[in-house]
């Protein structure tokens, strides 16, 4: 499958700077709907680490629509979502450790095709975000 056949997936959030415990609201849309040979669409809200260490990842919301179980055809498009966020971990931009929050949509289609789109946001209770340790 050529690049031009990639589905056009967009993820948008109403607010990208959130306080602990706040509600994340947004929507994703697949322009023209999922491809005919789409295998699955996954929506997740998660935090993950980057930096020197092995990546850690944890979900606070996950939903999947698959062709195998017949849910893909009934998936709303555009699909709005609202997720209550936990109070921690805060977004963090350290030297060895960084913590990122994202809403991620993954579309798998064809034999090997895959599109991943993310919308990043920050979660922090600090006065300046993302959190840091300097005075």
């Amino acid at each position, binding site marked *: 499958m050529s690049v031009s056949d990639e589905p056009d997936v967009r993820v948008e959030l109403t607010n990208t700077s959130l*306080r*602990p*415990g706040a509600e994340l609201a947004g929507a994703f849309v697949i322009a023209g709907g999922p491809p005919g040979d789409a295998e699955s669409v*996954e929506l*997740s809200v*998660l935090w993950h*680490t980057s*930096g*020197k*260490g*092995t*990546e*850690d*990842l*944890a*979900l*606070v*919301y*996950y939903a*999947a629509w698959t062709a195998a179980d017949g849910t893909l055809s009934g998936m709303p498009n555009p699909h709005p979502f609202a*997720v*209550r966020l*936990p*109070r*921690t*971990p*805060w977004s*963090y931009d*350290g*030297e*060895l*450790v960084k*913590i990122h929050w994202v809403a*991620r949509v*993954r579309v*798998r289609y064809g*034999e*090997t095709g*895959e599109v991943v789109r993310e919308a990043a946001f920050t979660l922090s*209770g*600090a*006065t*300046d975000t993302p*959190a*840091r*340790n*300097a*005075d």
Partner: protein
Amino acid sequence: MAAFRPNRAVGCFLFVWGGMFALVGSVFLVAVLLAAFNAPQQNNGLVWVFAVVALLPLALGVGGIAFAVRIWTKPAEPSPPSPKLSPAAKALGLRLGAGFLLAAVTSVGGVLVAHLQFDLPFLVTGLIFSAPWWVFYLLFRGRLKEFAALTARALPSPEGLAAVTSPSPKLAEWPSVLSSEEWPTVPEVDTSPGRELAHELERADLPAGCRFGCAVGVAVFWNGIVSVFVVSVVRDLIRGQDPGWNPGWFLTPFVLVGLGMIGYAVYAGFQWAVAGLVGRVRLEVSGHPLIPGGRYEVRVSQRGPFGLGGVAVALVCEESATYVAGTSKSTAARVVAEHPAAEHEVLPLATELAVPAGAMHSFKSANNAVSWTVRVSGRVLGGLRYRKEFAACVRPGET
């Protein structure tokens, strides 16, 4: 949903491929060694090169089998969905497997025939061994990439995997579990009731006596083994005998490492002695966990034979990251922030500890951590340095 046993499937895959690698490696190794012993006059050093080449697939194979056994014997845990290979992937996998087997048989058979039938030189034997693998790689290079892509597709996405394998929260229970877990990823740090203030912090680092004991144990173990070889070589040299190999090149790195261990053991012993001179240092705080933007009363006291002077107290933030390097895990740590609370004091002292308003909270996940400690440092007997770390938790305030 049916009970999936993907671990067993992966184990079978590793066992089969590991077995093939081990078979190829061991047969080649035996052939090389047989050739070396049967025709020692041809042993011009290449035999050891071929032996090492044979050890690589053997080691890979044994590692694969060991990993498979480990997977099979591992206690049951939440399993990700079983990888479901498409028919195209299965067909391609079969073709690749057949090609691999053909290359293995040709390679090993060629080596045996070349040596036993024609008694060819080692260099030619090596070429005969490696040629089928190169042909296999050149013919199937594109197919290997395709198979890797198809296999990757058969695996669940990282998010799907996390959704199934995360021990908590369970997918079906979201978001109720999340809301009940008040501070996800913020580790609990235990304290005990203080005498003057509300909390007494516990030490975060390993006691100096434990460090010394561990250092001595490791140094004795390492140097004990190395000394067997060193004594043997020295005895040969004293008797004027040739050890038959060059001991200098081989033993020097091991001896240097051993000396380094002895040096660290001496240093740890010195630290232990200093800790004994200082005695017990206690640190109490008026509140815990610490909240960003908060100010806390701190008291540091000492009970020991010699007074600690030039005492400094600081709130310290350290990041640590665990990563895989080769076949082992390593952890890197770095102090990223220090917030002094007192300097050049004598004990007992009372001071105020301020947590910056923008400070990151304590954080711990499987491979990454942000840790906070209160460090007390000073000098005893006029010059001997002393340091002790107390574990603290910085937690966001109620929101």
